[in-house]
């Protein structure tokens, strides 16, 4: 046989081998596959403060749970709670007969152990506890005492606050980091293959009970590429994807009769802090002009493909306590007038605008603003970089930019303005470098009253926000929604803006 013929024969044999190797493992009827782009980084609930809450919120429960639709807190591991008049002592009554997945009982002592560990470690969202001291006077009562009045009922509902067993806490972070977990939630960890998959199995003793049609097993498959995620969804290999799908793909997905795209409310929004200390945005009129150069409608309708709304206030309307304000509108004529009135020389009409992480939406918003700003004579220099790099630069005035839009959401149900607008000696998220004693006073007042007098707290914060808007310390660009593409035969997609997850224990397939 000649060499060429041998080569062709070998190639054909290899193709034949490909046919023989096709493996379609039979999918059990009660196994659902969810695709996500990012693996769990922190398995320890005392540290976890990122994307892994998508998975961990199905393994662990909080003490209370927020129901955004109803606008109220609901019992979870705690069935009732009360606060002293001064807002500094909280008493939680625990749900009886609840066990951790290891079989350990969930008692007040267990909750005390979890809280003591979390507060001592002070990582993740546990700063919210305000270094509380914890007592367990009996098996079903937990008492938390703080030096300042804090809304610990709301803090307890935070998606990053997850109750785990004392024995898990004793084993420590190294144990958790091997992919171990011990919560009270509806699913427990069966397997973790790093960067490949997480397999969760039904917790048969889940205190919330089961209807009978839920999945016995959930496989979370880690898939980095969006195109691969969508192929898996289209083929039916995946039932749902958590991953961030580009907004302009939503219409294409909707054309597929086998795919549905849920568009749900979110607490995520896009503020654009304007640096009040860096020229030329240290000029109030100049800043006001910038707020009128942003085309808010085009951002929501086109850049976000209709999956965002024009902000009606400085916090998203989906957030409990959000109020409507008189927000700046897109008006280039007004912007030009204000620029002329500002007194800033025309050759200084130049600002820097940050885009981080290569996020397309942020880049498109910047380009839109740049184009509109050029029409009124303002030059916008778009500065791109990784989040960590740009954040670090923004904290220091000498390296900061004039405008730094960033995706923001609160840790719990609060419209508190502190993180962005309270005076910070060492800037953390006050990217405007804004400092106003009245605003500080109102923020402080609102914070102190949040636990005991929500109405008065809201009024204090309203004044703070109004001043921030009057000072044009930020433009509020969009309130965004979440999109959750899934197979059309998957039902029970339960979400809540308070939790950036899908609750697995209601998911089920219908039909074939």
């Amino acid at each position, binding site marked *: 046989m000649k060499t060429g013929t041998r*080569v062709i024969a070998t190639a054909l044999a290899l193709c034949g081998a490909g046919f023989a190797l096709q*493996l379609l493992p039979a999918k059990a009827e009660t196994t659902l596959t969810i695709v996500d782009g990012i693996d769990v980084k922190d398995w320890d609930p005392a540290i976890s403060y990122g994307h892994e809450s998508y998975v961990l919120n199905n393994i662990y429960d909080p003490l209370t749970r927020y129901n955004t639709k109803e606008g109220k807190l609901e019992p979870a591991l705690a069935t009732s709670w009360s606060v002293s008049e001064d807002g500094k002592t909280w008493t939680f009554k625990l749900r009886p007969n609840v066990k951790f997945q290891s079989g350990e009982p969930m008692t007040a002592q267990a909750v005390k152990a979890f809280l003591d560990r979390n507060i001592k470690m002070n990582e993740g969202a546990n*700063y919210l506890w305000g270094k509380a001291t914890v007592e367990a006077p009996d098996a079903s009562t937990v008492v938390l005492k703080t030096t300042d009045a804090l809304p610990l009922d709301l803090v307890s509902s935070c998606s990053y606050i997850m109750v785990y067993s004392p024995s898990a806490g004793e084993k420590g972070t190294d144990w958790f980091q091997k992919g171990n977990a011990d919560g009270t939630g509806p699913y427990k960890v069966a397997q973790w293959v790093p960067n490949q998959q997480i397999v969760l199995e039904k917790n048969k003793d889940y205190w919330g009970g089961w209807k009978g049609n839920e999945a016995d097993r959930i496989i979370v498959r880690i898939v980095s590429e969006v*195109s691969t995620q969508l192929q898996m969804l*289209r083929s039916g290999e995946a039932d749902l994807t958590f991953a961030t799908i580009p907004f302009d793909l939503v219409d294409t997905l909707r054309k597929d009769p086998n795919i549905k795209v849920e568009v749900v409310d979110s607490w995520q929004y896009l503020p654009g802090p304007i640096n009040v200390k860096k020229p030329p945005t240290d000029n109030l009129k100049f800043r006001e002009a910038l707020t009128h150069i942003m085309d808010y409608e085009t951002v929501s309708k086109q850049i976000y493909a209709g999956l965002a709304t024009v902000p009606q206030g400085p916090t998203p309307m989906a957030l409990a306590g959000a109020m409507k304000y008189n927000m700046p509108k897109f008006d280039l004529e007004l912007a030009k007038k204000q620029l002329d009135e500002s007194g800033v020389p025309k050759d200084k009409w130049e600002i820097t605008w940050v885009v981080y992480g290569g996020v397309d939406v942020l880049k498109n918003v910047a380009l839109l603003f740049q184009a509109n700003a050029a029409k009124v004579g303002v030059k916008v220099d778009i500065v791109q970089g990784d989040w*960590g790099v740009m954040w670090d*630069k923004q904290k220091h005035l000498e390296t900061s930019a004039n405008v730094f839009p960033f995706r923001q959401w609160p840790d719990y149900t609060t419209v508190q303005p502190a993180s962005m607008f309270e005076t910070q000696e060492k800037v*953390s998220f006050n990217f405007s470098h804004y400092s106003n004693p009245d605003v500080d006073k109102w923020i402080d007042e609102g914070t102190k009253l949040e636990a005991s007098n929500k109405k008065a707290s809201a009024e204090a914060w309203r004044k703070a926000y109004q001043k921030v808007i009057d000072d044009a310390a930020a433009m509020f660009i969009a309130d965004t929604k979440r999109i959750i593409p899934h197979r059309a035969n998957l039902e029970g997609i339960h979400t809540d803006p308070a939790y950036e997850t899908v609750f697995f224990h209601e998911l089920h397939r219908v039909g074939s």
Partner: protein
Amino acid sequence: MTRYVAQRFLLLAGTLIGVLTVTFVLTHILPGSPVEVMLGHRPTQEQIAAATHRLGLDLPLWRQYLRFLAEIAQGQFGQSFLTNQPVLQDIGQRLMATVELTSLAVIAIVVIGIPIGVISAVKANSPLDHVVRSLTVAGVALPGFMLAMLLQMAFYGKLGLLPLQGRMASDILLDHHFPTVTGLFLVDSLLAGDLMAFRDALAHILLPLATLTLANLPLVARTTRNLLVEVLSEDYVRTAFAYGLKRRDVYFRYALKATLIPLLTVVGLTYGYLLGGAVVAEYVFDWPGIGGYVVRAIVQSDYPAAIGVTVFLATAYLTINLIIDLLYYVVDPRLRHS
């Protein structure tokens, strides 16, 4: 020979220290701090300060460097800021995935590329040669990610023959446990006698393997062709034909041997390149290898991971080159007798 090997090992150690120093300096002088990335979406100043102190990032750069060298000497590569796992563990899990993929790719490149190069050289300037050369140029010109996606669309999307991504199917990963002996799934599953796991691992590796092979095969094929065309014009080759030796013997036993030295260099360099350069295939196919890990580490200032992988890749690359240099002695009797 022993002296030569010892000299090369000393050179390897010196080069590694240089690589370590350059990597350390580059990762530490670039703007931005990794602490902001590793602590979650809104860490407090107190948490940032505590983490910065714990990681020693508030020390002067020279002290950080000394601390770093001391830890490396003890085999301590620290914890990845992005995965929160020991860097050595991360590398261990990922390195063998890349080794499996790239080793098979190199074997495929050699087994397919060299014969193609020989055929092309033998039929130099014929229509077949032109077709082969055009296809090899196309193979190099087509971006790796596009080739990967086209293969996915064809073999998974349209034909449904091969899996889309990953190293193994979910069910197989869950239900077929085989002991990790080498970290190479194909080998470990065979050693455990688990044919179902072996078939699944093989099915999953085929598309990323095809991507790497098709993208890198042209270089070996063209190099073989060009070298062999020159050798085939030599007098001794003409003499061998005149003596009536079979064509196959002349091409593969005499002519091809003369091209082995430069060909070994190309193959060695390709292997070294693939170890770090398989990142595109790893991304598209979610192959849990070292390429994607190191790219994320560099982009997000994950110093320990970036440095750890750099050390391994540099060691691997230098070792491969050392092996290639030693193979010259095996292949070329003139070097052995000199």
